[in-house]
């Protein structure tokens, strides 16, 4: 019994410590809450993505911060659970965070109404609600990069340019059976109607470890191009199945979730020719990346395995923070400190043609457009790395915005 009490007292003491310990705030730090899923569904991306985010913030701090302010990352694991995500969010809000990034669709969705109420910026890079691009309906939510609708549009556009038109072509859309997998369907259907190509969907069950039946069907459809819409472990399986079923890698186009590891799992040589959508450039040959290498990685200030620097997801993380820090800079310039969520939002809306020193397409946000234009490009696996094959561009934004408007209207009505 005595041992039990000791244990209880110890636990309570430790709890009190963690609660009070983290509550103190410094006035000259800007807090970004990176409350992400490190342990469940998004593990394929979180680690590298988060590493990139933190390394970039370290870089800015090492370079003296912005306007006297330094950045602090509040990092927590949410395990992809809305429950834990909301707790972490409330705690971060209390600690004074002005920006939050969940990198988890369910958590971001559950937090939408809260960030709108609390006036805290939520970035939903390559996840979350696509319709949040509508800045008037979702003033504090920034998808920031191309939505899945925009990605589909870019991929379709790429096929069109390769083939001199889409007329009569067959495009197979192979996706994981989830709302994420289905998201581009309406845009593609609309395009199919407009451009006169044949479009068919093929779903495979979550988590995508096994897709052979689906691909037997795909092969018989004899598609000219295949779009694969999955994430994590399902992606290499899709590519392997596609190649096995005689679809050339050059004719496989992937959603943004296709990284170096995936290509290696498929087999470095076998995957050669595979194409994907990319929202941020890969590699370390960009000024920001060079500075990170020099100022953060080499002195040993990096937060993770230095091998990850320059990978697809690492760079997306860097870019997400580069844009956010840029927004903070603009906001501080305009309004002065201390930074609030509202100022930061306006900072975002002031961003014009920002390309993170060449790492990404030039982004421009406005009160209406929180997507930043929906730009992207196609890159191709050359056996060792992802190599861009097009310039940055955006396509069919009219159709994309129809979708955004439609869903945003639904959100407004629901309120």
């Amino acid at each position, binding site marked *: *019994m005595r041992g*039990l009490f000791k244990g209880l007292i110890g636990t309570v003491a*430790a*709890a009190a*410590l*963690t*609660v009070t*310990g*983290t509550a103190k705030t410094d006035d000259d730090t800007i807090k970004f809450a990176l409350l992400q899923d*490190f*342990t*469940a569904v998004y593990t394929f991306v979180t*680690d590298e993505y*988060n*590493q990139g985010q*933190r390394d970039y913030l370290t870089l800015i701090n090492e370079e003296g911060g912005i306007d006297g302010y330094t950045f602090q990352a*509040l*990092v*927590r*694991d949410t*395990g*992809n*659970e*809305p*429950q*834990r995500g*909301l*707790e*972490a969010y*409330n*705690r971060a*809000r*209390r600690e004074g965070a002005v920006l939050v990034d969940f990198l988890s*669709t*369910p958590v971001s*969705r*559950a937090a*939408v*109404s*809260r960030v709108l109420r609390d006036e805290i910026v939520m970035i939903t890079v390559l996840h979350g*609600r*696509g*319709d949040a691009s509508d800045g008037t309906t979702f003033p504090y939510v920034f998808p920031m990069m191309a939505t899945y609708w925009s990605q589909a549009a870019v991929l379709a556009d790429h096929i069109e340019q390769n083939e001199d038109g889409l007329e009569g072509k067959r495009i197979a859309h192979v996706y994981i*059976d*989830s*709302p994420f997998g*289905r*998201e581009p*369907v*309406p845009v593609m259907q609309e395009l199919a109607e407009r451009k006169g190509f044949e479009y068919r969907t093929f779903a495979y069950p979550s988590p995508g470890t096994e897709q052979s039946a689906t691909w037997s069907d795909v092969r018989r459809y004899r598609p000219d191009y295949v779009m694969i819409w999955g994430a994590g472990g399902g992606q290499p399986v899709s590519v392997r199945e596609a190649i096995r079923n005689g679809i050339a890698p050059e004719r496989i186009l992937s959603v943004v979730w296709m990284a170096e590891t995936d290509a290696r799992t498929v087999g470095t040589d076998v995957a050669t020719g595979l194409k994907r959508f990319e929202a941020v450039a890969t590699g370390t040959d960009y000024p920001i990346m060079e500075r990170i290498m020099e100022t953060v990685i080499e002195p040993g200030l990096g*937060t*993770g*395995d230095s091998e990850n620097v320059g990978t697809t997801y690492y760079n997306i993380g860097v870019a997400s923070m580069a844009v956010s820090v840029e927004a903070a800079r603009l906001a501080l310039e305009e309004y002065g400190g201390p930074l609030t969520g509202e100022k930061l939002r306006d900072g975002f809306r002031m961003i014009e043609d920002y390309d993170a020193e060449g790492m990404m397409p030039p982004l421009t946000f406005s009160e209406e457009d929180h997507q930043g234009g929906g730009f992207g490009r196609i890159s191709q696996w050359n056996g060792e790395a992802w190599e861009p094959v097009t310039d940055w561009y955006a396509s069919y934004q009219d159709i994309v915005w129809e*979708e955004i408007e439609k*869903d945003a209207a*639904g*959100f407004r009505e*629901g*309120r």
Partner: protein
Amino acid sequence: MFYRLSGVHHTRYETARQLWPIPADRWQVWILLALALGAPLYMADLYLTSYMLPWLVWSAAALSLTLLMGVAGQLHFGFAAVMAIGAYTSIHIARAGWPFEIALIGAGLTAAVIGCVFGAAALRVKGLYLVMATLAMQYLVDWVIINVPAISGGAQATLQTPDVTFLFVPMQGDTALYYGALLWAVIVTVLVLNIKRTSFGRALVAVRDKDYAASIIGVNSFKYKLLAFFTSSFLGGVSGAVLAFCYYQAVTPEQFGFNVSIQLVAMVLVGGLGSVIGAYLGAGFVLLAPIFLTNAMAYAAIQGWLTVSSNLLAHIPLMAYGALIIGFLLFEPLGLAKIYDNIRKYFLVWPFRHSGS
């Protein structure tokens, strides 16, 4: 000191059968209730909204499940699906413009009816097979929700809760939502406590312990198993709706996935199968342990006590959480309720070490 058993004599059956026959227990319950009612006055909104409120709702859900698993002995690994049915029903009814009260009842009834379909499988099997059957149904319900846009809410697969009023009180703001959750937790608690001490509860226990012996004294085990599923699913469905409206303020399929079902079972088991206080303690543990561990790890890392990769840092709570569940089952299979009971017994005889025997 705290408990006085001597001098407590019941001279009427009525008093002997009351909920807390020991006056000290009654006082404790009143004090706890007063503390809960006053929480918005003295509790910071972080704790009120992030801990107290979800804890109350999950406790209500765990109580609903413990009624089924602990009292009636029917294992259920798909209870999150039942809650999902409640949440989606209520949100669709409310969005259609009906009053919130009707949405809640509708949530309960829909969950109860579909929950009985779960139960139909239970009529033939028990134990492990029931675990597997309910697990399969969880997958089925998940699939239906995800694949029917009319239910899940289209491409975004997320539905925001509309503003509602409950008994003329607008359910907006932390305080109103908190009281809503508290009210539901109190109702479920009273109901489960009363079920346990009346003929309905006894019949459920009888069916759980020995269904053949129950049948020969006139308990229709078919009917009572179904009733157990019905009642429990009703409560679970409403809990799902309350969770959606009072806490998440939005419904997405992931909120009620398979892992949530496992968490619910863990709440019931860690708390102590069939125990009311255990449901509260278990819900608190399963809900707060990962959060607490994550925060503790983050704090330790900031202080420089733990110099490991962020990846490992993120996974330590998961390991610790798994290890804690294992530890509870190994060392205190009767759960937190038993630990509470030990403490209570300690105070029953305090300042002495042992009771007479």
